[in-house]
């Protein structure tokens, strides 16, 4: 294999995981924009997506597309439930307290998953076989292509949603200024609910797409989710375009670093990138900037 082929290989595998990070990062962003929170249950939305797919597709034997859609819808509903049952009734609006509520829910959810699906590793088949295609000298799994296509589709739909639809625009208005949005007749509470549901759906898509490549376990989303969090910061926390860019950049850098330098410290690479960006360009690649008004 030439160096170029190797490089292309790293880039493709980086883009694959990067797409997943991007989807997860989008979930973090959307909730951050509607509430200012870091929602740690995002990582469990990813696990739950994979776990639902396992049950619906392998357990109940539903056709793949149906299992996919139902899985995503189920986690979307769970996302909404998390908001309704824990964030909404909270007596404090203090960010620190709310973030720790999501951490508590995350522990609770993982506990439940462990009971329901057990601690063992599970495997899910790829959507369409495992014989790699050779593209630009790199062997690319068909699952990677599915990941590219579906991520692209999701990002396109989100873009349409936020820029063209009434509800999407209302959500954006809420993120800029909830009070002003409320005065304009936007039901801010519903927007927050919607943001949790949407993030649940995004997490589920990420989980369903990636588990055929990795393996599945009740806590598969934790490491993926934390990398998604890093990706969101890399792109500029709260910046939707930044989340996608951050995810892809992080995936590729991580893959090249792991391939060319050290694979033992693969995870260290991703989080070192996170620290470097925080130290030298805390607004992220695309910028979020500090909101400070005096």
């Amino acid at each position: 294999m030439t160096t170029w082929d190797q490089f292309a290989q790293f880039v493709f595998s980086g883009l694959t995981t990067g797409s997943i990070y991007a989807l997860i990062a989008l979930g973090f962003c959307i909730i951050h924009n509607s509430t200012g929170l870091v929602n740690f249950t995002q990582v469990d939305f990813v696990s739950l997506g994979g776990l639902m797919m396992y049950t619906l597709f392998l357990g109940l034997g539903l056709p793949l597309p149906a299992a996919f859609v139902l899985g995503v819808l189920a986690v979307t509903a769970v996302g909404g439930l998390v908001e309704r049952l824990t964030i909404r009734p909270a007596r404090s609006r203090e960010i620190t307290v709310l973030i720790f509520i999501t951490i508590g829910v995350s522990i609770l959810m993982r506990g439940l998953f462990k009971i329901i699906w057990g601690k063992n590793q599970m495997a899910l088949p790829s959507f369409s076989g495992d014989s790699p295609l050779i593209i630009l000298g790199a062997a690319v799994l068909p699952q990677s292509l599915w990941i590219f296509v579906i991520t692209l589709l999701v990002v396109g739909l989100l873009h349409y949603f936020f820029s063209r639809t009434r509800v999407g625009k209302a959500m954006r208005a809420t993120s800029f200024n909830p009070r002003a949005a409320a005065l304009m007749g936007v039901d801010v509470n519903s927007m927050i609910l919607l943001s949790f549901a949407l993030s649940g759906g995004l997490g589920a898509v990420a989980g369903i797409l990636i588990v055929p490549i990795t393996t599945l376990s009740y806590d598969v989303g934790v490491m993926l989710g934390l990398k998604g969090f890093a990706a969101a910061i890399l792109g500029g926390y709260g910046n939707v375009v930044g989340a996608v860019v951050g995810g892809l950049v992080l995936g590729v850098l991580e893959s090249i670093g792991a391939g060319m330098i050290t694979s033992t410290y693969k995870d260290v690479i991703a989080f070192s990138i996170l620290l470097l960006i925080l130290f030298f360009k805390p607004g992220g690649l695309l910028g979020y900037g500090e909101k400070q008004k005096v």
Partner: protein
Amino acid sequence: MKHYLGLLVLAGVIIVFPLSVSNPYYLNVANIIGLNSIVVAGLNLLIGYAGQISLGHAAFYGLGAYFSGILTVTYQVNPIPAMLLAMLATGLIALLIGIPTLKLHGHYLVMATVGFNLIVNIIILQWDSVTGSPSGFPGIPNLKIGALVFDTDQKMYYLIWGLSFLIIILSLNLVRSRVGRGLRALHGSEPAASSLGVQTARYKVKVFVISTMFASLAGSLYAYYLTFISPKTFDIFFSIELVTMVIAGGIGNVWGALLGTVFFTTLPSVLDVFDEYKDIFYGLILVVILIFLPQGVLVGIKEYFFARKRSSDKDIQADDGGRVFSRGSSAAFCPPLGRISPDRTDDGVILSVRDVSINFGGIMALAQVSLDLFEGQVTALIGPNGAGKTTMINVVSGIHRPTEGSISFFGQEVKGKRSYYLAGLGLTRTFQNNQTFSNMTVLENVMVGLHAKTGKEFISSMFHLPGTGREEKAIEQRAWEVLRFFRLEDKGHWSASALSFGEQKRVEMARALAPNPRLILLDEPVAGLNMTETDEIAKLICDIRNQGISVLLVEHDMNLVMGISDRVVVLNYGRKIAEGRPQEIQKDEAVLAAYLGSVD
């Protein structure tokens, strides 16, 4: 030092506990609680007072443990110097993380520490030539001081809890000091804290470093206690548990944090009866506490059993009606309009702004503006919305650095100097949108105002070194004096957030005037106030002016401006268009055009 009773009870419990249990398992649990309590005490300072979250304290705890373990076993360093070296190294690493992330506003520390914890954990796991195997680092000796070997649970118990007790006292001292107020102030409002002389970035870094050194100490003790350490102990989930102890116990409450530590350290073992349902219950309990008792268990219990009462201070002395602010001027009353000539010589200039421009993303907010402020005068800065008035105040008070130009204050070039530095020179300010520290009492708000005038820092405050108590008393006395002048003395112990809008504005003025500044900048002091309140503020401004303090006033209320100003400077679209006595300004054509539109 209050909290005597609590400390006495704690000391009693600490001494009696080992004598009352026979099962060594309980002593072991107590030791782990003690170790956690040391980490949590530091975290509580960081979260509850500086308002910053770290999700990396398990890593600092781990660094303490591994540094000590490696130094002692691999390099044969004695445990005590090894522990101190470990603390130092941990503190240095924290400094490297803290400096870049804490100079920013917002929650960058939590993101950085998440990443840091994951990195440290992986390195400990993978670098087995140094850290032993992924399963752990064995063979660490017991702690030894001279002939005393800490080789039993009980000996370690007294050591751990002795240190924990000490650290709780240090924390209590710190939070009840000038430094503690500074920290809470920056949590409440960073720009306001800075404008009163609190070095916000430095304070945040210091408290972060101190908290990591506590964690490192606890980690070292853990290593010598268990003589075996493994990477699993120091993962991010333990960081989360530690922060949980602070938050669910009671953010910013030393006793609450201790209670949270006891509760959440023992909870997992209590929940062992639920076997595999353990995590579910742990998560559920955490969520329920945070939903229903967001201020933590301790405050929750207190509020349940005792009706909230608000004590009012008994030792308020009668107002002697004396002068509270003095700058040597002897004017005894507010002179009638325009009595002081605006055409003074340069001798009286205290602040001189020369050709200052500032540019926000291509928009010239100020273009080549020059203005002088004279000693003992009220200078008003007026202009239509968007004229650059607040920008000018922000430039003068060190929040924005001008793109060009120079600013001198009493002859010293101060362009680009930070707010806290200017506060030290005697320049303070109020804010257009209220920036009272809503997390503090009225009295404490005013006490923060004296930050720049006083100097006891972390070490003095924590160890209550000689002179600290005296300074503290002086600060409180002065604060009451100022509160009386502002007729806020009955509300000294109220939470600042319980006050009306108008009263909060007075608190802000009181706070900024407490240090007896040479110049105060007032940004729309009467916006949103009714006529009575406005008259009151007008009188206050007159009074402070007559006591010799110079004032720069930004205001839209023209009656107020024309009534109390000695000179008026008018800005429009970032440029100075007029300057003079109030009567002159009222007739100035450029000014009339700017406000009413041009006639032609």
